[in-house]
């Protein structure tokens, strides 16, 4: 790992100022960033450690939404009675990320800011029509995920919380790559106030909505309807873990399993 300057601010305002001044990177749980720095894939000159900012933690119900602080760990989301009661599918997503040790450190904000093409949380955020709160604005999920490891965040912008509207029904199904346990394909299906939303992770360079499956499920919210949709393999990932055609097939299958699980 290359050397870096280290700062641990106590407030969001101080963290934003530190990022703006240094051009550095924000560190949440570090389950992706520390690994990337060890491999010298990331080489930030300054690390701004967010762990001292208490206001970034916590889970609360606000009206018809669950608001989760950006530094809340996967383990905390998975075991939260508020989340389990209102959006059990979201608790299940958190429980399925990585392994126990990763869930003890990894955070919601860190996961979506990183926007790994095979990460689980982006699918939940997109399918549930969540809103990402930052220090300067609120970004709807449809505008947040921009590309492979790319988001709408500015370099000195920090996610403070994510607000998840409580859906009528929702479920996530993941087909894990057997060694890494990352999603070869993961599909989150939700019946929301804004209609049926289906988000796919792992299959393409970044999380995206499966509009043809959404259309089919809007007519008939059944596992068969999802399974009958043929997903084109163009633009899907094609690598040693699975061909694009295989992933395309898995999208429909995982969507149908998610519909069945959503009930």
């Amino acid at each position: 790992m290359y050397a870096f300057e280290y700062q641990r601010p106590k407030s969001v305002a101080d963290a934003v100022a530190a990022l703006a001044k240094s051009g550095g990177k924000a560190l949440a749980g570090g389950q992706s960033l520390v690994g990337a720095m060890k491999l010298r894939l990331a080489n930030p000159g300054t690390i701004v450690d967010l762990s001292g900012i208490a206001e970034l933690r916590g889970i609360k119900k606000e009206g018809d939404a669950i608001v989760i602080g950006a530094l809340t760990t996967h383990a905390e989301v998975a075991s939260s009675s508020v989340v389990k009661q209102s959006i059990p599918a979201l608790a299940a997503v958190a429980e399925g990320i990585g392994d126990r040790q990763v869930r003890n450190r990894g955070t919601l904000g860190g996961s979506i800011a990183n926007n790994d093409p095979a990460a689980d949380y982006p699918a939940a955020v997109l399918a549930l029509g969540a809103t990402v709160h930052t220090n300067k604005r609120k970004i709807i999920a449809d505008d947040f995920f921009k590309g492979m490891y790319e988001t709408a965040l500015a370099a000195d912008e920090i996610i403070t919380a994510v607000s998840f509207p409580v859906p009528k029904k929702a479920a996530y199904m993941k087909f894990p790559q057997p060694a890494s346990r990352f999603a070869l394909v993961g599909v989150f299906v939700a019946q929301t106030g804004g209609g049926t939303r289906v988000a796919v992770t792992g299959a393409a360079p970044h999380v995206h909505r499966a509009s043809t499956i959404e259309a089919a499920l809007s007519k008939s919210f059944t596992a068969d309807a999802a399974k009958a949709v043929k997903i084109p393999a163009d633009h899907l990932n094609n690598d040693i873990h699975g061909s694009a055609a295989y992933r395309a097939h898995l999208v429909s299958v995982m969507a149908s399993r998610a519909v069945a699980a959503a009930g």
Partner: protein
Amino acid sequence: MSVSLSLTVNDEAVNAQVDARTLLVDFIRNNLALTGTHVGCDTGQCGACTVLVDGNAVKACTILAVQANGSKITTIEGLAKNGELHPMQAAFKDCHGLQCGFCTPGMVLSAIDLVQRHPDADEATIRAELEGNLCRCTGYQNIVKAIAQGAAAMRG
């Protein structure tokens, strides 16, 4: 950049100056000479470096030492008290829950984290919770048996 650390390791206060890029596992092994915490894959997969940070199992190869500043760390060396093995260590010994032993410190610490949350864990839960700990000898059978026995002993 040098940073000051002040933390508790195995119930002892530790103060040190380290380079900010020092990983927790390297701090534990090199600065504190506690070599029971192993480095296996060094990429956050195998769990041989698992320690408890404020009671939670964490992979010490994927956290900076400075991120653990102010925390209470427990390594494998901190489990035995007054020469008596921790019940989970005793169970691993009784059940021969190890072959080469390289993964064992991480397994034992993950097991303790697991039992704190699932005191009555069944076999399926134990296997699922061990996802982050790999045994390259593939000796899982006795590891799972040891954790069930250790859990019973920890319940008292």
